[in-house]
């Protein structure tokens, strides 16, 4: 057994860390406060090559393994959750379905721009009445001659309403299966298609510099060939995408936990009360010790899940475990780190305040913690 990362992964980590310290950290707080998606940082992240990380070079991706993408997401999340969300949704949810399930023509048409970070794609699964119960999709697509006519709406869709959003891959009900269940199919809808509208959602607690949107389809007509893969494969494709996506949420949990730990450590070494740094009180040192230990466990679990995926072994169980564990570890770390900051941890001048808020999404998005436990309990044959 060898736990060391390769030279490539080390270089990747250092260079993304250097970048995020210099380009993201200085602007993250203000973007969060203004609830603003930044096209400047988007362009900078694209320049670094963070938008087609596991897509092959044939489609202008970076052709790296999954762990590379995870390390990059972790490093961005170490300084800011919103930017990590833009990267994660851009890669695993955006280019992912097109790359894994798209036709050759769709890949050639959409992937190069997306991999260059010039466009973003939105993953349209969640609906007002289909959250955890994602199979309850109510958006319909009916074939009329050579066109699908789509009606319905999606909610909470990341990267859905930016100026550079190129479109969405959305799950639609295209009929009824023989067993009576809905036939679900993914359809590509380009921005600008009449009847398709994306509206930015505001008033978020967290990920305030990430773009979240509602998508509306109102007699929206797209060509017949805009199907992503075969009819009826949609739900399976979405779940497959989410298995990979869970690793990105886990990476955000791990990176966020690491960032919170570092802030807690730095502050408690500098803060003097009762004539000594508060880190020298055992109750505080123990908090830091617990954080460090949990982060180590989280990293091992996540990297193992990535290793399984990169080696084409089943990884769904580990992905669900890593998503669950890493997001809960970040929850513990931000709580401890705010506590170590005392009253100052509640103020916006300290980044830990943002981390405390940003953390909560990780226990909800891409399958809530409860849903992860459902998935795991099924995969271990407990139910």
């Amino acid at each position, binding site marked *: 057994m060898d736990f060391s990362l390769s030279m*490539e992964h080390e270089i*990747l980590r*250092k260079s993304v860390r*250097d970048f995020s310290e210099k380009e993201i950290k200085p602007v993250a707080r203000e973007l969060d406060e203004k609830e603003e998606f930044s096209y400047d940082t988007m362009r900078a992240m694209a*320049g670094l*090559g963070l938008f087609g990380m596991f897509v092959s070079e044939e489609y202008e991706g970076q052709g790296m393994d999954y762990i590379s993408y995870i390390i990059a997401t972790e490093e961005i999340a170490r300084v800011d959750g919103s930017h990590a969300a833009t990267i994660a949704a851009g890669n695993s949810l955006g280019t992912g379905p097109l790359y894994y399930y798209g036709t050759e023509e769709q890949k050639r048409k959409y992937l190069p721009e997306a991999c260059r970070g010039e466009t973003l794609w939105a993953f349209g699964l969640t609906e007002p009445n289909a959250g955890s119960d994602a199979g309850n999709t109510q958006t319909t697509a009916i074939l009329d001659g050579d066109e699908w006519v789509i009606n319905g709406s999606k909610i909470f869709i990341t990267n859905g309403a930016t100026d550079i959003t190129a479109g969405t891959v959305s799950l639609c009900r295209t009929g009824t299966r023989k067993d009576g269940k809905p036939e679900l199919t993914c359809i590509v809808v380009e921005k600008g298609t009449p009847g398709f509208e994306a509206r930015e959602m505001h008033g978020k607690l967290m990920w305030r510099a990430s773009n979240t949107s509602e998508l509306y389809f109102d007699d929206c007509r797209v060509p017949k060939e805009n199907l992503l893969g075969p009819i009826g494969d949609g739900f399976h494709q979405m779940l497959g995408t989410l298995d990979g996506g869970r690793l990105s949420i886990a990476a955000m949990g791990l990176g966020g936990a690491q960032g919170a730990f570092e802030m807690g450590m730095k502050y408690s070494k500098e803060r003097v009360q009762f004539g000594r740094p508060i880190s020298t009180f055992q109750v505080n040192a123990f908090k830091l010790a617990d954080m460090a230990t949990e982060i180590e466990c989280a990293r091992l679990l996540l990297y193992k899940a990535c290793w399984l995926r990169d080696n084409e072994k089943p990884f769904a169980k580990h992905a669900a475990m890593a998503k669950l564990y890493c997001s809960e570890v970040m929850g513990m770390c931000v709580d401890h780190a705010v506590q170590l900051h005392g009253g100052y941890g509640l103020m916006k001048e300290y980044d830990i305040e943002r981390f405390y808020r940003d953390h909560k999404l990780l226990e909800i998005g891409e399958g809530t913690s409860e849903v992860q436990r459902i998935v795991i309990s099924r995969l271990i044959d407990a139910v």
Partner: protein
Amino acid sequence: MNIIVLIKQVPDTTEIKIDPKTGTLIREGVESIINPDDRHASIINPDDRHAIELAVSLKQDHGGKARVISMGPPQTIDAISEALGMGIDEGILLTDRNFGGADTWATAYTLGKTIEKIKKYDLVICGRQAIDGDTAQIGPQVAEFLNLPQLTYVTQVEQINEKRIVVQRALEDGYERMESPLPVLITVIGEINKPRHPRVDFLINACKDKANIKIWDAADLGVTVQEIGLGGSLTRVIKTFSPKIKRGGEILKGNKEEVVNQLIDRLHEKHFI
């Protein structure tokens, strides 16, 4: 357009302090991007980073090929890899024990010989000066060696085509616009652009054995030991020391009116007003 950039690897001075007692460098244990084991952090000289950025953006707009050349010990290859990560096509590392101890004359001679060997070039770009030596001599000396026109302290490339270049260059009290035929050597200052970060996949590939980096020694350049390194240097460093800076502050004494009058007198004396 064929572009050559001359770069230097220097100690990261933001991470280094001088021991006031001994006058020697205290290198803190910081890591370089490329080589995590390298505790003596080295970076691409800041001005040279702007030179690389200019080369990469000119190449993107006008096509062609961009090369970097750097002379130094074997670990200088890290600086070249980083340049390739930023989008430079090819690197040439000049490394040879006999290159050691070179002053600016011998360095410019070696770099000039390398450029002669490459032959095809339209534009040579250097940073204004290196943060460790601060001489700002290499660019101009290489231009003289190659018999090229030189444009120094460039802040903007306004126009460029196969035949000519128009730049804006910084003067102490403003800017001037100059035109030159190609090939030309220019030195750039930080104001000219914002250097990009290396692209992760380019950077990783640039650190592999198969990276497009040539390693040349004195024999490859066909130069003799007398012409290069310490042997080819016209100057000798006898001693280095940090200058003892006397902060020349002076406190004017008296009441408000007297002090203001004294100040005005001083400013007149110095012809500031």
